[in-house]
């Protein structure tokens, strides 16, 4: 049996123009709304698949304010069956702080009789982009860590993970327990079903306070880069543009046959 723990973060949906909060310490989600990153959606999907294959419990956790429950419910709606909420302002937590809080949850769950043999995270948070929480977590726990893989399977106490590296398709295989950070692309995260969403609403969420005061991120402030102007090259109008279009096809090498 394997009980994966998957860690998600409530972030502003970044598919539209980014608006910063007035204090410059975060991204304003009023207009775009909140979500978890695509990497984390895949990590959730993997956690659900692993738990199903191994007969374990997929637990989702987050560190965030009261509203972050929305992301926990989203994960519960697609198949996680337990949730832990470390109630804290994620903006005031640096990567090392978050790693320490996750480690505390893992230890406490083990002490309470639900050991997590596998902790899954996204490769990087969609907002702060630190690329390090999973690795710092592994050192906190003294576990090995595989980073940036897109498919993960567990069998016989071993985790096998695959991802693309500079030299080709790489395979990692190592004994549990382990930390794995996930890149999107290897699995298709499911959307919630109506019954799933209704079930998620009823799952009790373990609420807990942070284990320690945060050191904080080393952020001074956020700023926006200057906008990039339209660089469109108009090839022409109407049917007359056809030769220019096919020239472009040739130039891009998409016409070869």
């Amino acid at each position, binding site marked *: 049996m394997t009980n994966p723990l998957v860690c998600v973060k409530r972030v502003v949906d970044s*598919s539209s*123009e*980014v608006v910063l909060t007035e204090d410059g310490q975060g*991204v304003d989600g009023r207009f775009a709304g909140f979500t978890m990153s695509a990497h984390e959606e895949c990590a959730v999907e993997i956690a659900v698949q692993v738990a199903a294959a191994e007969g374990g419990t997929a637990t989702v956790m987050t560190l965030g304010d009261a509203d972050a429950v929305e992301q926990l419910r989203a994960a519960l709606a697609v198949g996680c069956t337990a949730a832990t909420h470390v109630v804290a302002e994620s903006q005031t937590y640096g*990567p*090392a702080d978050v*790693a320490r809080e996750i480690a505390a949850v893992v230890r406490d769950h083990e002490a309470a009789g639900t050991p997590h043999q596998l902790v899954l995270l996204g490769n990087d948070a*969609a*907002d702060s*982009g*630190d*690329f*390090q929480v999973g*690795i*710092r977590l592994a*050192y906190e726990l003294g576990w*090995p*860590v595989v*980073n*940036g893989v897109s498919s993960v399977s567990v069998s016989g106490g071993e985790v096998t993970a695959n991802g693309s*590296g*500079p*030299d*080709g*398709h*790489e*395979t*990692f295989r*190592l004994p549990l327990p*382990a930390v794995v950070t996930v890149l999107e*692309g290897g699995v*298709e995260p499911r959307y919630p079903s109506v019954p799933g969403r209704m079930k998620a609403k009823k799952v009790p969420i373990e609420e807990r306070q942070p284990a320690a005061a945060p050191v904080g991120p*080393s*952020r*001074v*402030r*956020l*700023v*926006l*880069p200057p906008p990039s102007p339209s*660089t*469109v*090259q*108009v*090839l022409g*109008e*109407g*049917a007359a*543009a*056809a*030769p*220019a*279009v*096919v020239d*472009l*096809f040739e130039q*891009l090498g*998409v*016409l070869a*046959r």
Partner: protein
Amino acid sequence: MILVLVEVSPAGEAVETSREAVTLARELSAAGGGVPIDAVVVGTPHDALVGVLASYGVRRVHALTGSAYDSFAGAAWAAGLLDVRERAGSVVVMAAGTPRGNEVLAHVGARTGVPMAANVISFGGLSPFTVTRQVVGGAALEEMRLSQRPAIFTVAGHAVQAAPADAAGAGELVVEKPDIADADLVARVVSTDEPEPDLSGALKSARVVVGAGRGAGSADGFGDLLELAELLDAPLGVSRVVTSLGWRPHHEQVGQTGSRISPDLYIPCGISGAIQHWAGCSTAKAILAINTDPDAPMVTKATHAVIGDLHEVIPAINAEIRRRRA
């Protein structure tokens, strides 16, 4: 001393992003009054590589060797880097903001208990040591202070242009053979294969995608578009409204709620470019928009555009392709 992890391509060359990192390191070096720059590579480098790094101003090239480095293990790479750093006493550890670079420097950060900044595009000053880095996928920037030593950060791709130094460095090769603990080799690559074909659908792996939106006009309005797709050996991708209207099946939908595609060329025809759709195609390398409205978001965000009705433009393109092939 500034220590830069330099990644080596399968062909044995220093990858461009690593050379960019070294270039930025020189700025740092100059600001610090000429602090020497050392590089760390994994494996024994060719002379040419050492020469190139010397031309970039590198004083020493430390080569990590031994069986621990036969295949990738992030912890082992970090252990080697720190081994060099401890002996050389570097105050800055850098790498390119690649998956490997970010991963290894995260290990370095965790092992030293020091913050790590990913995807830095510039540094703002030495005291305090301030960098600016990309966050939110590059849509925003963060000014970050690295007050502990070593300062650990990776350099975002194309933040600076890689360029050799005015004065070459000594380029002295130092072969290192650090002792690596077994624990640092548990998570390592056990095999590397040729990339498998993407099985997640023709749309996602296609080099070219022909897109169609409401401008198609009706379920019968896709004939020319399908012919173009056939000529380019490209799948058809459609906007949400097209599937909503039942003109085309759902699996062809591109967008936030459909497939996200990254072809070399995307040809959206009669698609205005609602953000919902844009989210699914924004990573295409080139976009040729065909639209009657020159101000449509799809046109202004595209790399190339033809202004006109797709029912006039597409048949002309199809004819032109056939003419050239004939």
